[in-house]
């Protein structure tokens, strides 16, 4: 019978089906970090349980870590205590930890792929909604709550109902200045933040095939922002080229066996999806958000919509009040004080290269604070090896040390109340970047141009 890519991987991981439609579902890799694991370890201990497969868990510290002076103790006592707790738990339970100071430390969704821990056909979970990122490799990857973290620790399994399958096809050549981030911000603006709830989304079409692995990760990363349980993309030569030679990727003969298997991971031609959507990628323009959820996005050169009543009106008005915007207003010319380039959406080497290529020989506007936070120690080292650090410094950007940083402001990197920040992260929720902060989500290219101009501009006029 014809199967979707999702079905092929799902079916391979069914330990057994339980009455009532639930599945005991096997997890190949479990990624953990300091925020959502302490209560899970505590629960495990309280029940007298141990980790069933500690060798299938990888840990890192990312949400709370400072982006300066990482060689020194963390100043904030609560952050320090949470990171210390992770270190203690990993030592006690025998989990590999890439903590502060380790050459592999970084954002959990950046290090999985770059180390080759993330591979096609696997199932990956983490107590973090952006686990959907790993789907870029043709992987069933999704975020879980802390109770589920405990379940995986204890049994290596989860009890799940099977999601529905949606395919989103993006065909067509991208316009100049349009990137993976714009594709996904566009799709989310069309579906809304709950539009894919209950679905696992497969992205397909020539525009997706044409993306680099970094771009594909950006797309899958934000699947959760339209409510999807996860996103995935069939592996292909781009995937295999990216993985070959990475630290934990299969080697030698194993590599050949792996690729032979991975090449079977695609949706059969006559596979049926529960929902299908198609978009013309060549019509997509550079995007930006204007409101307080990722579904509130428009082309940078368009105007904020005007809503005529409806059940969303109260939330829409509240959102625009928070942002200090009016319905029907254009965002062009708005002065911006902060630019944040980072997060599990856009902190990979390709993102840093995009920014450096644009700002080379230019200078950020005097009133803009521009911080750029690499996703991992390896990205940071690569940026230095390529001389990007000097280009960025000459342009007035501050290249910091790796972590989640101002994406969710659990460390010291906060945007002040009322200030506008163009951010490459994934969420523009109220207070996400600090109480009262106003976030506008955009691509690294839009962020770089905004930092130089000091205000929002129609970027198409700034491209060579």
């Amino acid at each position, binding site marked *: 019978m014809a199967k979707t890519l999702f079905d092929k991987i799902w079916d391979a991981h069914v330990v057994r089906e339980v009455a009532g439609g639930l599945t005991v579902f096997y997890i190949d890799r479990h990624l953990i970090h300091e925020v959502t694991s302490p209560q899970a370890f505590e629960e495990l201990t309280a029940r007298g349980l141990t980790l069933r497969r500690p060798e299938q868990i990888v840990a890192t510290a990312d949400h709370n870590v400072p982006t300066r002076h990482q060689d020194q103790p963390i100043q904030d006592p*609560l952050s320090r205590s949470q990171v210390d707790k992770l270190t203690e738990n990993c030592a006690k339970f025998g989990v590999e930890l890439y903590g502060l100071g380790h050459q592999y430390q970084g954002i959990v969704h950046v290090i999985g792929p770059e180390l080759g821990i993330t591979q096609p056909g696997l199932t990956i979970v983490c107590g973090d909604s952006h686990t959907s990122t790993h789907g870029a490799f043709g992987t069933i990857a999704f975020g879980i709550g802390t109770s589920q973290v405990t379940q995986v620790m204890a049994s290596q399994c989860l009890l799940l109902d099977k999601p529905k399958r949606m395919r989103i096809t993006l065909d067509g050549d991208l316009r100049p200045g349009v990137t993976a981030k714009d594709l996904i911000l566009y799709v989310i603006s069309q579906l809304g*933040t709950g539009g894919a709830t209950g679905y696992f989304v497969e992205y397909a079409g020539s525009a997706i095939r044409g993306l680099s692995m970094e771009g594909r990760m950006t797309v899958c990363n934000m699947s959760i922002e339209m409510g999807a349980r996860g996103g995935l993309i069939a592996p292909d030569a781009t995937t295999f080229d990216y993985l070959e030679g990475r630290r934990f990727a299969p080697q030698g003969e194993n590599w050949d066996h792996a690729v032979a298997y991975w090449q079977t991971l695609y949706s059969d031609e006559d596979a049926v999806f529960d929902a299908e959507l198609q978009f013309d990628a060549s019509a997509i323009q550079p995007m930006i958000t204007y409101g307080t959820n990722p579904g509130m996005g428009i082309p940078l050169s368009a105007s904020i919509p005007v809503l005529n009543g409806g059940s969303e009106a*109260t939330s829409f008005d509240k959102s625009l009040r928070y942002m200090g915007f009016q319905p029907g207003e254009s965002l062009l010319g708005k002065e911006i004080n902060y630019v944040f380039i980072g997060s599990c959406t856009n902190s990979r080497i390709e993102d840093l290269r995009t920014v450096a290529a644009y700002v080379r020989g230019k200078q950020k506007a005097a009133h803009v604070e521009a911080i750029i936070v690499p996703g991992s120690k390896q990205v940071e080292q690569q940026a230095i090896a390529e001389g990007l650090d000097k280009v960025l410094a000459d342009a007035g950007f501050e290249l910091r040390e790796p972590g989640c940083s101002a994406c969710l402001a659990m460390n010291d990197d906060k945007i002040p109340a009322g200030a506008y920040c163009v951010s490459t992260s994934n*969420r523009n929720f109220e*207070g996400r970047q600090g109480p009262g902060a106003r976030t506008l989500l955009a691509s690294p290219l839009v962020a770089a141009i905004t930092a130089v101009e000091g205000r929002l501009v129609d970027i198409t006029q700034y491209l060579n």
Partner: protein
Amino acid sequence: MEKFQTLRSGVVPLPIENVDTDQIIPARFLKATTREGFGANLFADWRYTADGQPKPDFVLNDARYLGHQILLAGKNFGCGSSREHAAWALYDAGFRVVISSYFADIFRGNALNTGLLPLQVSDEVLQGLFEVVSQDPQAALTVDLQAQTLTVPGWAEVIHFELDPYKKECLINGYDDIDFLISQEAAITAFEQQRSWVF
């Protein structure tokens, strides 16, 4: 997990759509390493001023709704971050039921694992409930989990709601998934011996 069977309670109305888990519990309060105490920071940025004073216009500070254990929320409640702390905060603040016309997947799962019932109704019923509460802030609803019904004062018919039968049993009996998964040890071990896709 605490058992849940029936509940009769007043309602706290929050007629806002797409309430994300960053609002339910902002990230800066996620630094604890135990499950306790999150209720004090529930909806912190909507509930308190920057210097920690209660904002009089926020519903959780409205004396008319004090002690009510049902939260009535707009569509798509709990989107965003997977933080289970959001469900813990609601539970810790005394809520046992959240009614909405749509829940984000991860939040729904987290709520059920916490013992908090995510009760989904149609958009029409949700609007009707907001009207009932706006007319009588003390209107008490009855949730009967066994019968899967919601009884609303003044409404001729009870509202039936859907819930996965396994999850229903867990809530009624105070069980969780860990007990069940551990009981599957033999099947899991057998399964692991034939994993051919790990290289």
